């Protein structure tokens, strides 16, 4: 076996090692990306499937300050919704005014300081109920499974509504699952 054969052999092995490294590295990176993607997609689906709520009470009234809707929401899912995620909840309020026949739909803004901060419709935790969410034996700030969150939805005075007006409320949780209910404004 000559010197040139040894050099050729060493060269061949070196090329194989480098090529193998590059290909293995590519496959590793692809695997990592796929793993992360699948994990994220699964987490997103779990957040959607594992979180659910139902409306247990709707009390809608028309007062001097405009329409107010008091809602009790029961966390019927398996995941807690942290107080930091309350702004990620969507409240869609639709009502047909009994006087004018005009139907209005509002996407209500979350107000951490209590209604009313925005021009048409706000929602906030009901500050007159304590503890809220209830019961709150553990983790009092967050909305745990099997506990009830009481919220107040405040329509601005400019949003004309009369007693007897029929409404529809849709609540969308941060993960995308939703619950809805019908109500009628009382005087």
């Amino acid at each position, binding site marked *: 076996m000559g010197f*040139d054969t040894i*050099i*050729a052999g060493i*060269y061949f092995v070196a*090329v194989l090692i*480098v*090529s193998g490294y*590059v*290909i293995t*590295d*590519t496959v590793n*990176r*692809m695997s990592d*990306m*796929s793993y*992360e*993607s*699948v994990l*994220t*997609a699964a987490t*997103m689906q779990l*957040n*959607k499937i594992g979180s659910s709520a139902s409306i247990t009470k709707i009390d809608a009234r028309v007062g001097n300050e405009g329409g107010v809707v008091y809602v009790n929401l029961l966390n019927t899912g398996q995941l807690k919704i942290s107080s930091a*995620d309350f*702004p*990620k909840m*969507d409240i*869609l309020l*639709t009502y*047909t005014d009994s006087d004018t*026949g*005009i*139907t*209005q*739909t*509002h*996407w209500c*803004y*979350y107000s951490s300081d209590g209604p009313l901060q925005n*021009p*048409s*419709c706000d929602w906030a935790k009901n500050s007159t109920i304590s503890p809220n969410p209830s019961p709150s034996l553990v983790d009092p700030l967050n909305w745990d499974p099997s506990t009830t969150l009481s919220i107040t939805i405040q329509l601005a005075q400019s*949003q004309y509504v009369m007693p007897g007006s029929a409404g529809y409320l*849709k609540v*969308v949780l*941060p*993960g*995308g699952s*939703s619950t809805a209910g019908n109500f009628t404004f009382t005087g």
Partner: protein
Amino acid sequence: MQVVISTAILLIATIIAASVFTAAALSELYTFQNSFQQIGSKAQAYYESSITIIGEAQASSSSGMAEIDVWVKNTGTTSFTITGTASDSQYWDVFITFPDGTYTRFPYSSTAGSCGSNQNGCFNVALLNDITGTGKWETGETVQLTIITTSSSLSSGAYQVSLSLSNGVTAQDNFSFSSTTTTTG
């Protein structure tokens, strides 16, 4: 002596040729790696994107054209730029299927409440709850699409709205209107 020189020349030529081949092959391998990484990144962005249409309502714009308001929630982990010249929303596709079976694609307009010179309708986007204050449409945040149609009123019946984002993620929803006048706010 002559044989040794010839062998040395051949050996050097072989080493040079092998080096050139190796450089070319490795370059191609790295190109291959980059391509796969790009494919992986795009697939990752696609799988981590998710949007949900949470509601629709009928409204009237100041121009007198009927509007359809659509609220869409970002239920994925990918964020989207919705304002400025680099906005993703200019690449979105919004389709409405009307009760008579016809459907229309509405182009993006950056001017709120107006389609500008576009006579075929358009849609505007507004971020409603910018929780992080970044101006981007991020996880859990909701945008309101205001679709300005070319009609002064919308007929009652069944509609379908479809939104496709710039990375191909799509959401669609069926809804219907009654004949009553409606507004949104």
